[in-house]
């Protein structure tokens, strides 16, 4: 088992190192093949490991990183069903995205950097997935952050892209602070940083501590998983190449936060407050994301807000105490969101980097049937139409929210199901505008021809399409004749235990309700945004325009950040940077930093360059030391 897991992690790392070291020396062909091979081999290893572990928990120590007194950091991995499943998903989706990237980046000069980052990204994600030691995990966590920074700002020559990368980096860093604090607290309390140990001894925590941990971890996860209020970086992070968006937003990076919560579930599951907080954060984010997605005009931004929204569902699942459902949704979401992004990438590629959905139309359906059908499958899954994968996974979340004790959760359930309707609405709005009807910009129509994407890009859509529809079979509820395989598989995971038998009436009722709501959403979308739709236009006049702007600007969250957080910081940096503005805003901080510099200048004068001064200090020091000794010895 140990060599398999080691290889599982090492293959992407080696691929990345190869690109970094020899990428410039060898041909493009080799770089591409090595990068893909690294991930695909890793996927094969994940399959073998998944197969041979048989759902058992295994802790394997690779080596001791360092050991200082009683504090040791072990490079060990915890291969339990959760990790096995996650590793499988990550490597599978990443493999497809790598293959897709070969086509997508065909004409880009920075391919070496690109594939290097991409491989390292997968490696870091696998570290998060498998690590048992929190410091080890944190390294992966930071690695993911760093790689995403590089990839989002991949076309760094454009200032906007570089600043998007920086924004992602900074906002996720805010989350990392909380994670760092949490790690410190864990060590203080448990004297160990092993997840296994911590989970096993979580019962020594008082409810207060549990709440604290829950909030800290929520804060950390919110940064990584773009939950409110740290969500603003994700839509901007679309600046990177589209496969990167697929990788970051669909399968890997953003799920790291949720995964962390699932991994450390026992630490806070005893605290109702923490759980409620997580559920509320998830629900609000889900609703917020769905609303914001409703009015976006950029195909990738729609999908980005949809990701935020779907991640909210996963948080809700964790908050409702059903991490099986959360994981289930994570996996199905990975499939259909990767599919949607990759299909969007095909569309963008076909229209020569055009991202405005109002410039698309039925010509795409005619020209790209290979993209149209997978996209439809993905849209159906996202809208949770029965019997797609999304339907089952979302349904399970709704059921567990509904059945969770407390009237409060009923309310959350209500918002969640409302969001489900919104989800169907915005998904099919996107679908109808992109693939049906006419483009709104007739005049440019003639200039642009649709370019067919290379076959390896299209080919990767199909397996994802199939999975988007059929992945629901993994955890088919008993009512549908399934055995709930995933629930069985996750039975041993702490916190994944069944909540008793689900009443058939609830199960069936919920299924029907969500199906109806989904279909209702689609019908609305057809009337509003279909080829002859009422609202098929980029902006709205009159009183509705304000609402429209509110939604399009995602409740002005970005603006709020700029106005009340980023702006003062920028100002401060500005003041510190060019001293001209010294009469500026935050005098206190400025003079604080200035004091350091002043001290520094004074101390610099001390080193006067004159030997007599140095010799004087030598004897002065001797005298002072002797005086100190005399005082200590009390002969003075």
């Amino acid at each position, binding site marked *: 088992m140990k060599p398999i897991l080691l290889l599982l992690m090492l293959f992407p790392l080696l691929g990345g190192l190869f690109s970094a070291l020899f990428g410039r020396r060898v041909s493009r062909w080799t770089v591409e093949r090595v990068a893909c091979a690294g991930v695909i081999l890793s996927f094969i290893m994940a399959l073998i490991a998944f197969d041979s572990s048989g759902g058992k928990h295994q802790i394997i120590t690779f080596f001791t*990183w360092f050991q200082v007194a009683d504090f040791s950091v072990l490079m060990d991995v915890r291969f339990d069903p959760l990790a096995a499943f996650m590793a499988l998903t990550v490597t599978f989706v990443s493999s497809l995205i790598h293959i897709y990237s070969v086509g997508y980046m065909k004409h880009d000069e920075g391919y070496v950097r690109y594939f290097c980052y991409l491989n390292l990204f997968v490696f870091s994600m696998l570290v998060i997935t498998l690590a048992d030691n929190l410091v080890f995990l944190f390294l992966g966590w930071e690695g993911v952050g760093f790689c995403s920074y590089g990839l989002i700002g991949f076309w760094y020559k454009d200032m906007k892209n570089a600043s998007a990368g920086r924004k992602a980096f900074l906002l996720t860093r805010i989350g990392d602070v909380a994670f760092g604090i949490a790690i410190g607290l864990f060590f203080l309390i448990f004297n160990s940083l092993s997840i296994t140990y911590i989970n096993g001894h979580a019962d020594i925590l008082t409810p207060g501590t549990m709440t604290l941990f829950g909030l800290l971890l929520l804060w950390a996860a919110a940064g990584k998983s773009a939950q409110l209020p740290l969500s603003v970086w994700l839509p901007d992070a679309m600046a990177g190449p589209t496969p990167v968006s697929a990788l970051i937003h669909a399968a890997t990076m953003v799920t790291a936060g949720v995964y962390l919560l699932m991994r450390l579930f026992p630490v806070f599951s005893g605290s109702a407050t923490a759980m409620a907080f997580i559920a509320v954060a998830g629900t609000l984010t889900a609703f917020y994301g769905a609303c914001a997605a409703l009015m976006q005009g950029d195909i990738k931004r729609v999908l980005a807000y949809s990701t935020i929204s779907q991640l909210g569902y996963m948080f809700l699942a964790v908050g409702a105490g059903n991490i099986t459902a959360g994981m289930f949704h994570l996996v199905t979401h990975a499939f259909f969101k990767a599919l949607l992004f990759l299909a969007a990438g095909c569309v963008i590629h076909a229209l020569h980097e055009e991202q405005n959905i109002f410039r698309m139309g039925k010509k795409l359906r005619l020209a790209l049937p290979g993209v149209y059908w997978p996209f439809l499958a993905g849209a159906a899954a996202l809208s949770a139409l029965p019997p797609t994968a999304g339907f089952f996974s979302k349904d399970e979340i709704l059921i567990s929210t509904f059945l969770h004790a407390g009237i409060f959760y009923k309310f959350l359930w209500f918002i969640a199901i409302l969001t489900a309707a919104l989800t169907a609405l915005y998904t099919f709005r996107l679908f109808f505008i992109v693939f049906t009807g006419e483009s709104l910009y007739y005049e440019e129509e003639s200039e642009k021809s649709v370019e067919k994407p290379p076959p390896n890009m299209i080919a990767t859509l199909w397996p994802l399409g199939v999975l988007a529809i059929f992945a629901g079979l993994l955890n088919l509820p008993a009512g549908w004749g399934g055995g709930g395989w995933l629930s069985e598989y996750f039975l041993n995971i702490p916190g994944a235990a069944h909540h008793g038998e689900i009443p058939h009436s609830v199960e069936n009722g919920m299924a029907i309700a969500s199906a109806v709501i989904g279909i209702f959403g689609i019908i609305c979308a057809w009337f509003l945004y279909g080829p002859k739709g009422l609202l098929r236009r980029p902006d709205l006049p009159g009183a509705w325009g304000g609402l429209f702007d509110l939604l399009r600007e995602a409740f002005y969250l970005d603006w709020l950040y700029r106005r009340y957080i980023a702006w003062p910081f920028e100002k401060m940096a500005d003041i510190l940077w060019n001293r001209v503005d010294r009469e500026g805003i935050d005098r206190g901080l400025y003079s604080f930093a200035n004091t350091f*510099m002043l001290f520094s200048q004074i101390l610099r004068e001390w080193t006067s360059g004159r030997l007599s001064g140095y010799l004087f*200090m030598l004897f002065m020091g001797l005298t002072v*030391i002797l005086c100190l000794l005399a005082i200590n010895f009390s002969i003075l």
Partner: protein
Amino acid sequence: MQSDWIVILPHLFLAGGGLLIFCIGAFWKNRPDGTLFITALLSAGAAAVEALAFSGSGTPFAGMVSGDSFSRFFIALFCGISVITLLFSRRYALHRRFSGDEFYGLILFATLGMALAAGATHWAILFLGVELLSISLYILIAIHKSSQAANEAGIKYFIMGSAASAILLFGIAILYASTGEMGIVESLNAPDSRNPLFLLGLGMVITGFGFKISLVPFHLWTPDVYQGAPAPVAGFLSTGSKIAMVAALLRIVTGASPPVWEVIAPVIWTLAALTIIVGNLTALVQDHIKRLLAYSSIAQMGYLLMALLASRGDGAGASAVIFYSVIYAFMDLGAFGAVSLVSLGEPMARADRDSLTAYRGLGYEYPFAGALLAVSLLSLAGLPPTGGFIGKFALFQAAIGADYMAIAVIGIIGAIISIYYYIKVIAVLYMRPTRVPTPHTFPGFSGPVACASIFALIVLMGILPGSLLEVIAVILS
């Protein structure tokens, strides 16, 4: 008796190698620089191998030098330092035309001095080792005769160093006068080693040591000398001579009897705190890289002293000190080595490339030396995944574990401040250069070999520090 000789076999290799080099230089027409260089490398390497491979035991020569694994470990470290210094200085010395038997021979003699100082169990050997080291360094610093700055640095170090040696010597005399013991540990544990006279001597000895490892307020010479000295020599000075003194100090600190320790601990505490604060603060405004490195090395010594305070307990402190010494040696050598590599192409070949503005975009011009400098600085700043991170972690862990909370907090604040000036240099290194860079390559093998080995060591110790820590645990047990 035979084991006596095994103990000093590394010393014999170093001394013999030095003498051989001078003989070759004296009797061979047209002094063959390559042969001299190889001889120096081989002697240092052989001494290192000998120190690691053969275990002598006991303290031969009437208890004057120690053959324990502690001193053998340090001897190997010093040999490693001198090998790397030799590699970095090869081209540098040729280019500035001071290579020759004096340079290589004196490096070996200085290494011998370090080995003696670190392994001494007798005050006479300690003093003679320190003096051998110092006198070799006086000449090595001033060895670049066409450089005005080296000249000034040499005279400054000489005057300060000889005054400090005199203080150290007088301290030793007073210690002997009060206890009648010449053995280091014996004198520290003598029955009447709590009388005032003894403390007077100890105060002077601490001052002497404080000068050699440049603790505040005895640090003033450090930036001047480092700036003036040729870069490889500055690296040698800042690593070898300091670590030798730290090793000797470690013996003193762990050997002192509890009542003595009670009195001197506050003094060491004060020195450590002052050194951390002043070193880091003064480094903030430096705009010459060698001065910046000098202040940084001052601050690093403060951290080491902090852990030295904690080294009387369960061994965590001592282990941290030794571990950090090793890391510090390589990262500081790496930084100065990178400076010496990029100074090779300086047109006038008189001074080093020193001003921070001259480093703008250097990472593109000299990719390898730039990377070495960046990694060394990151390690000095204590950022993962470099060895400096683990080392600093161990130091702070030791200090906190021994309940030196206040100084640990000062140290951590200092370390945070220090990140600013290290990163500043790295930012300058990778700034877009003002002109289009022409990537340079280094002629010969020695520079790149040294570069690669330091790079590997820093990263390796950051990723796999376990084996070294185990070795240190064995040494201390």
